[in-house]
């Protein structure tokens, strides 16, 4: 992990809700693994105090980027930055996905959970995996890439309905060794159940409000089963990627 103040290399808008922030730093692109994240802060604004966690979305040579959804104060203020402005980045943080070799991998994302997928896909590809990707959004605005199996709840783009409905069918008809997923918790929950039923290993990336992002504050815990006991694990340090079958969902 490093603390860097880097100028924005590029900021571009996919549509009104999503934008991409990219930076250049060789050391970082060498270090990062898919599923890891950075704590990002606009150092020119004191409030909100806390940095916010964002997954690495793409890595190309010395350039890495984030895909960000505008939902509140910080994401809105990041969206107003321009090229050259300085951003504080702490990372890479977290465990990241465990990459398999030469397997049938299925990637499932929902909404902004798509963020870590391009980088994950690239690395899995490099390890000889056969990859299928499903992505779900509410509307066409939540669709990022034409090369994956897109599903929209309103049916406006790609397949119609929840992404998990289509994944269910896919799992019935196709051999899958491991599922990688990131998205809203209700989606993850359904997906994990599907995977358990189909005896497929599933790695899920979890989200929690974070303070430190490094494991120091114990603010970001989730309940996970370990040796037949339910223990609190830190999403920032022990995660954000967990074995889906072990996660104990909050009441």
């Amino acid at each position, binding site marked *: 992990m490093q603390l860097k103040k880097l100028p924005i290399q590029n900021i571009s808008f996919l549509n009104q809700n999503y934008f991409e922030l990219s930076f250049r730093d060789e050391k970082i692109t060498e270090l990062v693994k898919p599923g890891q994240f950075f704590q990002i802060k606009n150092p020119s604004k*004191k409030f909100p*105090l806390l940095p916010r966690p964002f997954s690495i979305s793409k890595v190309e040579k010395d350039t890495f980027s984030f895909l960000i959804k505008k939902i509140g104060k910080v994401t809105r203020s990041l969206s107003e930055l321009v090229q050259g402005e300085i951003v504080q980045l702490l990372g890479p943080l977290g465990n990241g996905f465990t990459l398999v070799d030469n397997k049938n991998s299925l990637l499932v994302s929902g909404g902004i959970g798509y963020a870590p997928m391009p980088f994950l896909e690239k690395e899995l590809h490099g390890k000889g995996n056969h990859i299928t990707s499903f992505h779900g959004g509410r509307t066409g605005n939540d669709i990022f890439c034409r090369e994956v199996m897109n599903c929209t709840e309103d049916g406006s783009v790609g397949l119609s309905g929840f992404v998990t409905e289509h994944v269910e069918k896919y799992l019935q008809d196709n051999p899958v060794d491991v599922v990688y997923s990131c998205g809203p918790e209700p989606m993850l929950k359904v997906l994990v159940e599907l995977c358990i039923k189909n005896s497929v290993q599933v790695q899920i990336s979890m989200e929690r409000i974070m303070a430190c992002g490094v494991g120091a504050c114990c603010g970001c815990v989730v309940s996970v089963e370990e040796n037949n006991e339910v223990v609190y694990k830190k999403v920032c340090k022990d995660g954000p990627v967990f074995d889906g079958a072990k996660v104990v969902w909050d009441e």
Partner: protein
Amino acid sequence: MNKCEIQFGKMKWKNPLTVASGTFGLEYAELFDLSLLGALTTKTITPKPKKGNKPQRIVETEVGLLNSIGLQNPGLEEFIKTDLQKYQEFDTNLIVSISASTIDEFIKMIERLDIQTGIDAYEINVSCPNVENEGIAFGTNEEIVFELTRKITSVTEKTVIIKLTPNVTSIENIALAAQKGGADGLALINTLYGMAIDVDARKLKLRNGIGGYSGPGIKPIALQNVYRVAQVVAIPILAMGGISNVQDALEFVIAGATAVAVGTQNFVNPFTSIEVIRGLEVYCHQHSVDFNELIGSIT
């Protein structure tokens, strides 16, 4: 350049900076050499492992942070086995923060820790707002603080620092009780009670409802507590509460603190404590003042 060395109880610090208990961990050793700090303070350790409170444990408010971690920690034995070893690698003072449910338990912890190497001081957390029937009850009662301090200081030779809660009518009385009990120093303040509500869901934002409020919003309150306590005690004060930069740190020192700790701001910028050290040196140089003259120099 002025080096800002201080004496805190029985310890010599190379500079007056440490980190507030629970807001810093060995993880930050990846970022800088922790030996640069005047002291390291561990998160609070309890006799047995503690799972901590149910999430949601953290909420950011407009100008600060609410937490209800509930002292999640691996317990005394695991701490000794793992973290303590690692802390010993750093060439600086180590303050171990401890909490327990009874005076007896506190004493047992001290006895167990006292036979370890590498510990320079104990910070007695009698002020955590997030644990029921523990800590806070101690910290609001003069007699118990006196009794606890007296017993602890009678079993250890190490520096004993009592950490005070601001959630009391008279923090001076608690401070005086600790001093009378033989405390070598005081740490203040712990968090204030605070709360936040999600108005759309009409729900408490923290699972526990009330949590500990820290960060910039509490700074004027913390400063006032430090100033008031400094007027009545003769032992050194380790000050904390909303310190974000060297200006903040200076306010506390001028109000009477011998040392300062960075807490919540570590989450914002983990280098803050290092930047404050440098800033204090610059201030002392520019104002041609020795750091120790600065302490309590308010007029």
